[in-house]
């Protein structure tokens, strides 16, 4: 049998952390773009679009990410479209992230007083201009802290990408445990690594929030 030193464990987990980071970035960028589109669709007066968005959000917030990943990877292939793990992970994580971001951002937009919309409307701005010049700039400012905070959830969510063959931190941890029979040590390192990745992001989000609240007073 192979012998793992602590350094071997840590080194392998660190290498696997690259995938965690890469997957998180993909999820975040993809989810951000789709989330923005969903947000705009949700804000338009079209009832059909609003229904679609709320159904979408309900679907992806109401089912385990694990199942979403699985069905994206294998489900798409069932229709004869061959997907690489990267595409599948990108698709599934984007769907998942966008649903949450769209909700977060909708909350931010909703917190802009109605009077702002009305003032913009009474100045004859059209819907796009109201959104672009009046509402979004204000919403963006309050949206940044919760958005950065959600990044932490995304990082943790990538732990589940192992079902479609990604060897990220958690999967690497499991594999190493199998070879070492030292779950306690390995999972300590795994937890530590996630904490090291997530905590600075959390702190940053909190700092942003504090700064924003301070500037509001």
């Amino acid at each position, binding site marked *: 049998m192979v012998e793992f030193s602590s350094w071997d464990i840590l080194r392998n987990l660190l290498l696997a952390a690259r995938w965690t980071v890469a997957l998180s970035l993909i999820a975040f960028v993809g989810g951000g773009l789709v989330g923005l589109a969903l947000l705009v669709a949700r804000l338009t007066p079209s009832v059909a679009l609003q229904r679609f968005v709320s159904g979408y959000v*309900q*679907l992806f*917030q*109401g*089912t*385990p*990410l*694990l*199942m*979403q990943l*699985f*069905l994206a990877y*294998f*489900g798409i292939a*069932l*229709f*004869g479209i061959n997907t690489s793990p990267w595409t599948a992970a990108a698709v599934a994580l984007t769907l998942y992230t966008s649903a949450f971001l769209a909700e977060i951002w909708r909350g931010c937009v909703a917190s802009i007083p109605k009077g702002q919309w009305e003032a913009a409307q009474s100045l004859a701005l059209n819907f796009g201009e109201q959104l672009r010049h009046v509402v979004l700039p204000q919403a963006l400012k309050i949206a940044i802290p919760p958005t950065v905070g959600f990044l*932490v959830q995304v990082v*943790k969510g990538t*732990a589940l990408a192992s079902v479609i063959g990604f060897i990220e931190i*958690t999967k690497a*941890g499991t594999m190493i445990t199998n070879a070492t029979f030292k*779950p*306690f040590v390995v*999972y*300590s390192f*795994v*937890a530590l690594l*996630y*904490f090291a990745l*997530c*905590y600075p992001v*959390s702190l940053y989000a909190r700092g942003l929030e504090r700064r924003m609240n301070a500037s509001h007073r």
Partner: protein
Amino acid sequence: MRITFDFLAILAQWPMLLKGVAWTLGLTAISAVIGVVVGVACAWARSDGPTWLRWVVGVYVELIRNTPFIVQLFFIFFGLPAAGFRLSPEAASVIAMVVNLGAYATEIIRAGLEATPRGQIEAALSLALNRMQIFLRVVLPPALRKVWPSLVSQIIIVMLGSAVCGQISTEELSYAANLIQSRNFRAFEAFIIATAIYLALSIALRRLLNWAGARFLF
């Protein structure tokens, strides 16, 4: 497509699925109740408690919020025995869920507490209420009402997260689906059905909690 779906092969195992649903709901119910209580207590400690307690609660909240649930679960089940705590898988699952929800609930409820208008506290003070009375009777109820939707969302996230509890042999819904599919290899059918059940559960749970919150809590 070269495979044919056979959903009946899964649905035929309905007693197993039903048992899974019961476990999922049971775990969620217990951990929601205790988790929210933990959240209230910790939120109070964080905004009103002594400095050392604030610090302890702060560390707890940060540790939990910045590590994945599955790692926490493995720690409690595989790691704690080394320290002399031996827990059944079900107990370990509940504890992991409570600990996890408690940390998030702390932050959510704290936000609600902080949003309390100063005037509410002053009005209560000028009516000669003491600190505990003010917290429990004046500050907490509106704060809970304000953050109830976020709490409900978090409870649902925890319910969906409980899908990994099957990995330590707690017989919840995803465990049932996995067990069925590992016997007959009908993975798609099993996961699609499980996903649909999860969706139904989260919609129903959100309705129920929103209704119950409005009806009983406030």
